[in-house]
């Protein structure tokens, strides 16, 4: 019996390794095969290769991709670039999301409703984006990741001509850049 085990064990170990390597093909480095004399314990998979068969441990940082829709925009009062309470609360959440993930670049867009002139609104839109940016930096988001772009009233989210449309357009909007 022992002799049988001694013969089979390395084969079993090897099979176990192959099973663990699973769908990780050419790109992923294969773990070191054990020497045939010692049934080497199964190495823990590092770096984590994405396999569909073997479960991988939950990553602590960095691997979940941050999407634009993960960040909530903040809205402003008419003719204003001041953050109100709702805006600050939204930015607190956005700051946490940004601290928990690394993203290559964050673009903060400033937008206005249609009621000012085009040129004044380009400046006001920038004010709004800057207000959001400054708040996020104070909340621990790295300044170097952030670009501010003001679109003034040129890219409305709602093309209506009433207060409900205008309110949607007075915003600082976040997009994840690359």
């Amino acid at each position, binding site marked *: 019996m022992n002799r049988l085990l001694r013969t089979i064990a390395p084969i079993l170990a090897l099979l176990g390794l192959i099973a663990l390597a699973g769908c990780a093909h050419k790109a992923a480095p294969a773990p070191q095969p054990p020497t045939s004399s010692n049934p080497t314990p199964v190495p823990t998979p590092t770096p984590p290769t994405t396999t569909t068969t073997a479960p991988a441990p939950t990553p602590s940082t960095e691997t979940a991709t941050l999407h634009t829709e993960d960040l909530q925009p903040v809205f402003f009062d008419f003719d204003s670039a001041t953050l109100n309470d709702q805006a600050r609360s939204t930015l607190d959440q956005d700051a946490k999301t940004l601290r928990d993930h690394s993203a290559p670049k964050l673009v903060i867009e400033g937008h206005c409703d249609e009621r*000012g002139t*085009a*040129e*004044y609104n*380009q*400046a006001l839109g*920038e004010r709004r984006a800057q207000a959001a940016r400054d708040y996020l930096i104070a909340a621990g988001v790295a300044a170097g990741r952030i670009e*501010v772009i*003001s679109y003034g009233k*040129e890219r409305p989210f709602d093309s209506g001509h009433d207060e409900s449309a205008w309110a949607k357009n007075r915003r600082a909007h976040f997009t994840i850049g690359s």
Partner: protein
Amino acid sequence: MSLVGYAAALAVGFALAATAAGAAWADMPSDVRIDIRSDVVRRIRVHEESLKETGNRSSPAIPGLQADEVLANDLDASAVFTVSRGWTGVPPIDVQAVIGGEWNVSGGQIKLTGQIWDFPARHPILSREYRGPASDWRALVHRFADDVVLQFTGEPGVAGTRIAFVARQGTTKELYVMDADGARLEALTSDHSIALSPSWAPDGSLLLFTSYRSGHGPRIFVTPATHGPVYLVSGRPGNNTSASYSPDGREIACTLSQDGNSEIYVADARGSSLRRLTNNPGIDTSPVWSPTGREIAFTSDRSGSPQVYVMDRDGGNVRRLSYEVSYTDSPAWSPKGDQLAFVARTSDGFEIDVCKADGSQLRRVVSGGSNENPHWSPDGRHLIFASNRDGVFGVYVTDLDDRPPRRIPTGDLTASSPAWSPRLHEPRGVGSADRSP
């Protein structure tokens, strides 16, 4: 012949000789002149005769009735004339002059002979030949119309100028140009981005504009007014917007936020050698030069809401233009130097007001719907602007009289941000000369 007959013959002879010598306006009856500096513009009634076709009548190059329309439109749009086209019964008693002439085509070249006669005596006042390629017949008509205005006011008309504007197509905005009557409309950009705020060079050769074509924030670019490459003028961090040339074309005033806040700067014509003019935590934007180049008007919200201010070209002596209106923006300085136009906020959007350069004599000149981006014509007689008075935004002109603004057709393009070119040099190949009648 009697002594009176001799005198009459001498008088007519003098008139003809003076005309033939090219000094056509030296002996014009004084009652057909108007004072162009008068605030009240009373239109002169003239009658336009259909231009006669001479030479090869079957040539398709003769523009025919179309040219009559272009001429009548130019004369009416000048705000100097009321134009009648056909006699029905007795001609109106107050017709002061008859406008007409002839076309002649020869080998791809077209010759327009433009003529003015007084009425009712039909003494010739002007006879001038305009020549050019047949494809440029519109330019010849516009030249003649501008000469008719010159004849009666002492200053040429603006029929031969161009309009730059921005057309929205879906989510993008491109830069376009067209003749002052809406003809020869063409796109100058196809960047599939957002172009804004076109501004002409004083010689009409270039257009400054703002664009998002770089993929970053708004930057200032320049392009030839007749197709050509786009060059970057200012791409500094933050906003680069609202550029306008100084009257001598050597400098550009613009709005930059590179120091963290929208301020007004002056650069050289290439966008270098910056000097900062405003230093204020408020938004300062929309700088425009006075025609002398000694002052700059601009918009600032330093008092709490946007207002038009004026400062010296070095940034000193800042003064608010008007205290009579609560929210003003988009200043435009008349080429005559004596007036500024600007927008004032209303419940519907904006109206357009005009006042003297010292802020006095404020009056509303355009209202109804929302009216934005006023710019003066080079003769200071008209304001062009964007308005949604008929539903969607289009280009309109007001003659600062009691008539409603008229629309410059832009096809089915939603148009905004119009800018009126300076008077342009004659197209190549187009020439004119006085002719003995």
